[in-house]
Structures are given as structure tokens and as C-alpha cells.
């Protein structure tokens, strides 16, 4: 036994615990009184980076509310003056915006449902460690992460073999399953408590019943992660649409935007061109369209963000 109280408290885990309890607030109080240089620098740098992330987006929002002639004369400003709703009136008056939303919503909703179902079912069969099935399936789903056929064969497959040109399924199907997300789901399924599944088996539940009534309800967190990742991918997808959709009535929002960039001066390609013809405020319309395209993501973001954090954290440790 040590003679001094000081040493004793160092050796005794309870005493150490207690000491930490009392020390911590003190340390924090000290830090609050005089923050260290690095902490101050951190606040400044993080704030600046936050502004760097937000300002470009805000400029688009401001631009969408600023009259085109003012934009051309005075350049961009952070606050729209005079305030103008011309672009939004044109967009909401025309048919293109509605068509674009219908297309994007269809692709996102149908795509996400198909993707999540496909990923979860395949992942469960792999996670189940069935002899003769799970191991080969793992390799089967892993190889495409290492090697893929590339753009040309895919293009020929979709247009020549499957004849999906101008169908929204041409946008959905090529990106339906992400092998990476399949494997993240597999590792989640393997962490489910085996006892619950065993209990169900003793009660005589079949494989399908176990999957639908026990595994899926227990897997809501990973299903949310999957759904959100796939949904954002589909909402932002424009390359597949660029390749396979040529009928302007079927353009998703991103492709309408892409066309607004590609044909800067071509007023006839603008949504709302019927209303405004050549005098259409090209830039203001573009910004308004951008705001309406990013809008839904921005709206869902506060609710969805924690699932994304969970997803990429899983991805970083498992992939």
C-alpha cells in the first residue's frame, strides 16, 4: 500500500475516475476563458470553408431572382435587386418543368424501390453463407468492381439488344445495383443477432418468412442508407439520360439543365420558350431551373444527413 494519498489515487481506478470527473469541467472552464490559437484558427478556417461551400450556391439563388438585364449590366450580387420572378413565372407557365419533374420523380422513385429490393435480397443470400451458393455469388458480385466492359458495349446493349432508347428504364437499369452497396449490406446482415433468427427457425418459420418478417424489420437503418444513396444517385443522374433519352418531353431535370448549358444562345430549347421566344432571359432561367433541381435535395437533406454519415462511415471501415 502506498503511503501518500497522491499515489494511491493514481493506482486506484475509482479514484482516477473521480479525479477525471472533477478535472474535466475545470479544463473546459479554462479552455473557455482563454482559447488556444489553434482552436481560434480552426473556427476561422472552418467558417471560411463553410462560406466557400455556400456562396456559389447562394449566388445561383440570388441570380435566379435578379432581372436578366441587371445581371448583364451589373454582374452578380449576393442580394437580388430589383427582385424579379420572371424566370419562375416562365418555368411554372411552361410544360417542360412539369415534364422534367415527372421524369425525375419516376426515375428516382421506381429506381430506388427496385435498387433497394435487388440489393437487399442479393445481399441476404450472400450473407446467409449457404454452401454452394453464397461463396460463388460473392465472387460473381465482386468481379464487376474490378473489371467492366465500358461505355460502348453498354451503349450497344441498351440501344440494340434491349431497345430501351427513350425509356426511363434506360436510365434506371444500367445503374440499378452498386456492388459496393451490396457488400455493405452483406456486412450489416451478418451482424444481426443470430439468436433471433434461430428462435424463428425453432418456431418453424421458413426462409422467406424469416427474411421478410424478421430480417427486413431489423434492418431499417441499412435500408434507409441504401434508399438515400440510390435516391440521390438517381436524382442527380444525367449521363445515362444524355446517352439514351433523346425525346425532349422525357428529359429528367438534370438533362434539361445540361441542355441549357450546351445551347446557351438557343432560346428555342429553353423551357418556357413558347411564352418568351427569343427574348427569354437565358441566364435567369438557368438559375431558376438549377434552384428547382437542387431544391428537393436541399429540402430532404436535414432529415437524411445522419443516414449518409452512417453509410459512409460503414463504407470507410468495411470497404
Amino acid at each position, binding site marked *: 500500500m502506498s503511503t501518500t494519498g497522491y499515489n494511491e489515487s493514481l493506482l486506484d481506478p475509482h479514484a482516477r475516475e473521480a479525479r477525471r470527473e472533477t*478535472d474535466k469541467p475545470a479544463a473546459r472552464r479554462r479552455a473557455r476563458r482563454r482559447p*488556444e490559437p489553434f*482552436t481560434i484558427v*480552426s473556427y476561422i478556417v472552418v*467558417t471560411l*470553408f463553410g462560406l466557400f*461551400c455556400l456562396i*456559389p*450556391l447562394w*449566388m445561383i439563388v440570388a441570380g435566379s431572382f435578379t432581372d436578366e438585364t441587371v445581371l*448583364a449590366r451589373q*454582374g452578380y450580387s449576393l442580394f437580388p435587386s430589383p427582385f424579379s420572378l420572371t424566370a419562375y413565372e416562365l418555368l411554372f407557365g411552361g410544360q417542360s418543368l412539369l415534364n422534367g419533374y415527372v421524369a425525375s420523380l419516376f426515375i428516382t422513385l421506381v429506381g430506388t424501390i427496385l435498387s433497394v429490393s435487388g440489393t437487399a*435480397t*442479393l445481399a441476404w*443470400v450472400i450473407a446467409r453463407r*449457404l454452401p454452394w*451458393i453464397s461463396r460463388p*455469388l460473392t465472387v*460473381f*458480385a465482386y468481379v464487376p*468492381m*474490378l*473489371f*467492366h*466492359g*465500358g*461505355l*460502348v*458495349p*453498354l*451503349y*450497344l*446493349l441498351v440501344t440494340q439488344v434491349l431497345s430501351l432508347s427513350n425509356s426511363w428504364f434506360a436510365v434506371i*437499369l*444500367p445503374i*440499378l*445495383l452498386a456492388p459496393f452497396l451490396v*457488400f455493405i449490406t452483406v456486412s450489416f446482415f451478418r451482424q444481426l443477432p443470430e439468436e433471433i433468427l434461430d428462435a424463428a*427457425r*425453432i418456431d*418453424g418459420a*421458413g*426462409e422467406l418468412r424469416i*427474411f421478410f418478417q424478421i430480417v427486413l424489420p431489423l434492418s431499417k437503418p441499412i435500408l434507409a442508407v441504401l434508399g438515400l444513396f440510390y435516391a*440521390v444517385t438517381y436524382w*442527380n443522374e*444525367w*449521363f445515362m439520360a444524355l446517352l439514351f433519352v433523346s425525346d425532349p418531353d422525357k428529359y429528367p431535370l438534370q438533362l434539361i*439543365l*445540361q441542355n441549357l*448549358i450546351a445551347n446557351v444562345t438557343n432560346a428555342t430549347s429553353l423551357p418556357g420558350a413558347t411564352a418568351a421566344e427569343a427574348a427569354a432571359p437565358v441566364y435567369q432561367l*438557368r*438559375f431558376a431551373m438549377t434552384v428547382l433541381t437542387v431544391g428537393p*435535395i*436541399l429540402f430532404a*437533406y436535414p432529415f437524411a444527413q445522419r443516414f449518409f*454519415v452512417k453509410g*459512409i*462511415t460503414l463504407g470507410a*471501415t468495411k470497404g
Partner: protein
Amino acid sequence: MQGKAIVPAALKRGPSSRDGLVLLLLAVPGIAWFAVFAYGPMAGLVVAFKDFNIRDGIFGSPWNGFANFRYFLTSGDALTIVVNTLFLNALFLSASLLAGLILALMLNEIRGSLYRRFMQSTIFFPYFVSPIVISIMLQVILSGVGGSGGALNNLLSVIDLPQPSWYTEPGAWPWILTIVKVWQLGGYTSVIFLAAITSISEEVYEAAAIDGASRARMALSITTPLLLPTLGVLLVLGVGRIFFGDFATIYAIVQDNGILFPTTDVIDTYVFRSLRTIGDFGTTAAIGLFQSVVGFFFVTAAVLVQRRFHKESSIL
């Protein structure tokens, strides 16, 4: 012996062959998708060895050996786009990892407050902005309405600096694209690093505090070294994908602006443009196959390195 007898028969026999069949049925949609959309295009790569025409189709067109590859490799574009792909990806990777690391270290200084959560959400958001929207943003900053000078040039004019016409300056674009990548991925990468930071024991910092270390010293001598394994994993994954350009972002920004091709054209954008403008399926498939094969070696090497040094983080 006795312990074994307690295990119910339903568990002891494991999945029966009937169960296996039912489960296989569950996997059929996934298997079908992989067969058609992942393995189908691999079979379609025979186009690279053919003088392709639509009438005869993929398998009916006449063979032409390595003519497609020869055409591409002697075209003079090959070296440019391969160098661009490697150079740009190396820039993007190092810049976004560095930015993510620094941001994570600094976010970690902002403790337990609402402000930290707000900032984290803010810098993570650009990850969800589509390439097309990024492209429009960049035009606001660099070119303005009708090329009247964007926000950046307005700023430069205030402090009397030259105002380049950015969309005709190929030399500036590797750096502009790198800044775009930092904007897009800085917050995302920092989230991964922050997750790793939370697993570092608080006691290490307490010990350092007792020894009189400053916050800056702790970040440099404790947090950073403990983040190296995470950095390594991300680096290896990035190097594995170094032969595949970020098509979406680059094409959305550069579009068909030929002036910028010398510094921004990567394999993926080149393939897409050849397909669209020349319509030469054989040659473009050959370039794609070349990319897939070289890419395969990079990815496989990356996977092997990762498994060697960081077994628990590998997928298989």
C-alpha cells in the same frame, strides 16, 4: 455430447436444399441484373476486335484483329488523355484527402456545439450537388452573363489584377478542377476522418494535456499519426481508381469546349466524344478495353495492398 443433444433439430441440420432453392429464388433478380448489365458488356467487348457496323450487329460484324487498337495508339491523342487522366486524378486525390484531413482536425477543435453540427452539414452538402449544377455555378464565378466577366473577375478588377478569360485558358484548368473537387469532396472526406477520430481514446489527450501539450501539438502529434491508417485506406482506394476519370464532373464542366481539351480531356470524356461525334464503335470499344485492362491491374493491386496491410477493412 449432452450439449449437442439440446440443440434443436431445426438448427442442427443447417439450411436444407429446399431452403437453398427458396433463397436462390430471392437472389434471381440480382443475379439476372449482374448477368445482363455487368457481364453482358464484358462479352460485348469483342466489338473492340471488329469492324463494327449496325447491320451485322455485335457478333456478325467482321473481325479486324488489333486494327482498332493500332488506330487509337498511333492517333497521338492516346498519350495526352492517359497523362491527363493520371495527372488530374493524382491532383484530385491528394487535394481532397489533404483538405478532408485538415477539415477533420479543425472540426474536432469545435467541441460539442450546435455550430459544429451546422458546419459539418454545410461542408458535407456539396457532395450531393450534381455535376451539371456545379458546372452552372462555375460559369457564374468564371464567366458571367454572356461572358461579361464572372464574380471572380469582378473581384480581381477591384484589386487591379489581370482578369483572364478563363474558358480559353487551358493551363488554369487542372487547378480549377482541383478546387472544384475540394469543394465537392472536402466535407465528405472529413466525415470519414472524423469517424476515425471519435475512436481515439480520450485518455491519450488527457495525458498530453497533463504534459502541457497545446491543442495544435495534439492535432499534429496524436490525431494525425492515428489517422494514417484511414488515410492509407482512402489513398489505396483512390489509386485503384486512378485510371478512371471523373467523367460526370469533367464533362459537365468542359462540355465540348475544344480549347480546354489539351489539359482536361481524360479517357472517359474522349471515349464518350468519339462515340457521339465519330460514331466509331470499334475504336471507342478498343479504348474502353484498354482502360478496363490497365484499370484492372491498378484496382487489383490496390485490393491486394489493402488486404495485406489492413485485413479487417477489406470486403472479402
